[in-house]
């Protein structure tokens, strides 16, 4: 078993365990902290795939900005385990069963797919994930979507201010 495989299984186990802990934590602050652990594990996967730009952006945008926003809102509302709404157990059971059915259908679909048998993912080599190549593609072929996304950010900012202001 090579180092790459050991790292892959370690990061996958860490991500799945942390995402389960996001669900079962009673305290919303603990859920946010476990979700940050999931994002770190996924950034480790990006580094393993040599997608360095996406690894850093994932850490900065998700684990940095978005999760701080979540923590800020949770602490602003003073949520904790005592204010957590209760739910009856058969609703939980129904949710778990339907999610498990979804997983089962998709796994059986992937097992029957013949297009991906024998295909391998290029690990730790390949330079399309470097900032230089991604930046060249972003500012030559994808410059129109890039500018449109700036308009999207402006509209989201205006929308958040309009929704969040006291009326």
């Amino acid at each position, binding site marked *: 078993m090579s180092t790459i495989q050991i790292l892959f299984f370690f990061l996958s186990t860490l991500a799945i365990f942390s995402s389960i802990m996001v669900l079962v934590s009673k305290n*919303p602050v603990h859920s946010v902290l476990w979700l940050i652990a999931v994002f770190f594990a996924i950034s480790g996967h990006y580094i393993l795939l040599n997608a360095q730009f996406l690894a850093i952006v994932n850490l900065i945008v998700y684990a940095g900005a978005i999760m701080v926003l979540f923590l800020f809102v949770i602490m602003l509302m003073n949520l904790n385990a005592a204010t957590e709404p209760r739910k009856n157990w058969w609703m939980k059971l129904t949710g778990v069963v339907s999610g498990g059915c979804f997983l089962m259908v998709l796994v059986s679909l992937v097992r029957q797919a013949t297009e991906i048998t024998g295909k391998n993912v290029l690990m730790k080599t390949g330079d399309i994930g470097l900032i230089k190549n991604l930046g060249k593609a972003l500012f030559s072929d994808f410059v129109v979507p890039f500018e449109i*996304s700036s308009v999207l950010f402006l509209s989201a900012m205006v929308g958040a201010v309009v*929704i969040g202001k006291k009326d």
Partner: protein
Amino acid sequence: MPIQYYIYFCLTLFSIGIIGVLTRRNAIIVFMCVELMLNAVNLLLVAFSKMHHGAALAANPHTAVGIEGQLFVFFIMVVAAAEVSVGLAIIVMMYRNTHSVDINFLNRLKN
């Protein structure tokens, strides 16, 4: 690493996100599970991009096949950041009106 491992891992993460959306009633946790599902899809996009890049690399060592997948991940992150800002503003407004983040209070549009 075979692509199947990545597909199974991302499907598991996505299903955990779906289970969270279905079982939790706290609106903020539901929102966090949506982020989890977005991240699973992002990782799968990068894995497929590296798969196609590795297949095309044998024919041409200077190819850039598969770079679109990583750019799509970048745009998904942009859209997710905008979505989170608006969504959290909506949750704060809902908390101000109902003094709760329980999503079962949101059924007033039903009648």
